[in-house]
């Protein structure tokens, strides 16, 4: 292939404008496609973010009803209703555990992170995290794996309200370098000081798009409000459908003044997860359009470049060149320009990646997207060049002579 480079370079010099435009087009196309792939990969991670628990046996129950006319009794009434619902749900056959949960579970837009503080041997520490109000039964509902200490048992211990369970992420941030956590006090912006009683494996109970979503502080306060209550029910293995039907029966139908929602809990159904899937699809369509533009433009110009050098092709054929030589010449020429464009594109892409890091936390520019984009563009251009070159190379050399 090397002995083609001389004619190729000469050919490039004769059509500098055209090939410069090819180079720029490939470079900007490379940058666009790579950015789309990086963004799409970033969104795609939220389709399958490991939430840290098996959601399949879980059923989400929520009840919305107006506040009572007497606001003074509203809180007590709400607590009584919540306890009653809890008892009724627990009484359903094949229900393993039920825990009240807050509205923010997997709904990202109604919660902001808060600051937590702790005192370690080496000084104070602060970390952002999320508060999750629930119940000791949460451990059984979500099958939380305890790393340190003991998850509170379901008791009426008044000390429960001053206890907190941290996920491993938050534990490492508040008590780094192996500092002891159990028994230590944690201060939070939205809750009274609490004593760490256990550390569990990371779970995502909040916005998966937030890089701090693993860092949870589980508190034991009633998450129900005067107007709404939510529960997570864990069914026995293989009994989710049965339990679902039973829960719907127990909870009753909605009415104009009461909204009851009972459905299997699936993190993939969360709003952010659906948005992420939609964005991946739209970005894929965008990428396809980029590839089509590259193909159409390259094919048309390649056809022209072949036709424009019909005389050259005729002479080469007349001097003994085979169709293979002709095709190879055009493919080499095309590849040189495309590789040049990819080279320029790599530099621009690196700059764009630095910009993306601020907007897409954790995004990584690995070799795979670069290789894929480069191969795609090269293949695009090669096919677009190969077809007209092949056609011209197979024609009768005598007929290739210009009139």
């Amino acid at each position, binding site marked *: 292939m090397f002995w083609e480079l001389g004619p190729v370079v000469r050919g490039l010099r004769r059509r500098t*404008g*055209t090939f410069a*435009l*090819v180079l*720029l*087009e490939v470079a*900007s*196309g490379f*940058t666009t496609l790579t*950015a*789309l792939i990086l*963004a799409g990969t970033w969104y795609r991670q939220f389709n399958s973010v490991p939430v840290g628990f098996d959601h399949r046996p879980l059923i989400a129950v929520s009840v*919305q009803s*107006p*506040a009572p006319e007497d*606001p003074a009794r*509203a*809180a007590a009434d709400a607590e009584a209703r919540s306890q009653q619902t809890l008892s009724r749900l627990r009484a359903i056959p094949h229900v393993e555990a039920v825990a009240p949960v807050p509205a923010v579970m997997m709904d990202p*837009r*109604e919660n*902001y*992170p*808060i*600051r937590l503080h702790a005192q370690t041997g080496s000084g104070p520490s602060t970390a952002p995290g999320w508060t999750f109000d629930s119940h000791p039964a949460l451990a059984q509902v979500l099958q939380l794996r305890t790393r340190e200490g003991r998850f509170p048992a379901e008791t009426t211990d008044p000390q429960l309200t001053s206890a907190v369970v941290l996920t491993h992420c938050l534990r490492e941030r508040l008590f780094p370098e192996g500092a002891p956590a159990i028994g230590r006090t944690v201060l*939070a*912006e*939205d809750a*009274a000081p609490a004593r760490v009683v256990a550390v569990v494996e990371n779970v995502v109970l909040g*916005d998966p*798009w*937030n*890089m701090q979503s693993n860092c949870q502080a589980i508190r034991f306060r*009633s998450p129900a409000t*005067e*107007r709404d209550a939510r529960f997570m029910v864990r069914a026995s293995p293989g009994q989710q459908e049965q339990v679902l039907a039973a829960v719907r029966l127990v909870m009753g139908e*909605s*009415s*104009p*003044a*009461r*909204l009851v929602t009972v459905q299997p809990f699936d993190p993939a159904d969360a709003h952010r997860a659906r*948005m992420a899937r*939609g964005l991946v699809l*739209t970005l894929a*369509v*965008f990428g396809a*359009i980029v590839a*089509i*533009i*590259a193909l*159409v*433009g390259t094919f*048309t*110009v390649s*056809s*022209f470049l072949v036709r*424009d050098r019909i005389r050259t092709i005729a002479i080469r054929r007349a001097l003994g060149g085979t169709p293979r030589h002709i095709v190879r010449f055009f493919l080499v020429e095309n590849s040189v320009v495309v590789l040049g464009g990819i080279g320029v594109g790599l530099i621009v892409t690196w700059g764009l990646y630095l910009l993306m890091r*601020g*907007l*897409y936390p954790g995004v990584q520019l690995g070799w795979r997207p670069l290789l894929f984009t480069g191969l795609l563009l090269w293949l695009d251009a090669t096919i677009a060049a190969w077809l007209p070159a092949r056609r011209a190379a197979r024609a009768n050399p005598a007929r290739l002579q210009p009139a």
Partner: protein
Amino acid sequence: MLLYQLRLAIFGLRRQAGYALAILVVLALAGGMWTFGVCRYLRHHGRYPDLSPTLHQVELAHLETPTITRIQGNTHTTATWATHTRVSFPEYRQLAGSGIPARETGTYRSRLLVASPRGDAAPELVPSRFVNADFFSMFELPLGSGRAFTRSEEAAGAAVVVLGQRLHRRLFGTDRLEPATVVILEGRRFRVLGVIEGDQPVRPAWDIASMDSNQDAAYLPFGWSTRLLARPMTLVPQSPVGDRFDHLLDSDTLFVSFWVDLPTDEQRRAYARRLQERFGAEGRPYLLRSYPEWRQAFAPPHTRVAFLSSLSALLLLVAGFSVARLLLAKGISRRGELGVHRALGATQRALFAGQMLEAGLLSLTAALAGILVALPYIALFNHAVADIDIPVRLTGQTFLLGTGVCFVMGLVAALYPSWRASKTPPALYMERR
């Protein structure tokens, strides 16, 4: 003369239909994506409306929410904005009721149960906003039909509501308000006084921290918030709070957005004195911002939306290079014809103009065809992504921007090829022939 040139240009394009089609396809595809990018960008980053410059908001010093200092996109932004634009309920009480401003409104959002009075469907939980009567005139919300509630209705605690257009359409199948329309809100009958026209901005000036959420579906008098025990949708905690609703109202949790209208200098000075007495004297920093100052302070940040929209601009650039390449090839393939034109006396300028006219025709057609690409992509985005219930939409402004820039890109891409084509020497072709 122009008509003759146009006919020549069309004739030239028809003779090289392959090139013309390729240019059309390339520029239309890129133009369509560019138009979508513009639509989406302006949905998020459009200008704040030109409201009265006498509107003011007070910023009090609060604890910032803990977000990573680099921009993380919208969650970071709304959290920060909430800290700077919202106040607690006790602070709201101190800011309101002075009698100084000509108009004032506090506002916050909650989820409320709403159902049709026919009772033929399950209720739905919708984001609803509690506002004072002056809210509608202060923020110039367009009423498609009916009216807003008055101060006297608010003071009397009347069960009245203004509905958003989408909710009214869902409940009653129409945008027009019929007389004596009633809706069941939180189990109570509320009289519907008016229906807001159209969709609200994605970044509503009255409460920018609610950006990127579904729009307000209903507007109720502020006093109903305490009667309904309506907890705010988003809170910024400053310290631990008890579990009762009244604990929340007594706490320093931030959730109320408060605005005043101070049309005269005297009112501004009087209100500033009040702020000094209530907050300054306690050593609490405060800032009274006018609406124009507020607009500058809370300009939309760079977001992922802006980045993705900029990729569509990059695609238009890719198309520009491709179009330039195609036009160059087209011009070279017409050397013979152009050489004859030169030989017959056509000037370089005439050739240049002719080539530019052809490119202009193609660009215009492609720019308009790009709308046919943009519309289905917009529909796909609204359906598949459905981030909020304010859809990405093609408006007059986005149509002009989308097609205009695409058209200009086509012309710019044609400059070099047209110049090259105009340099075709006549002698060469005369000699050959």
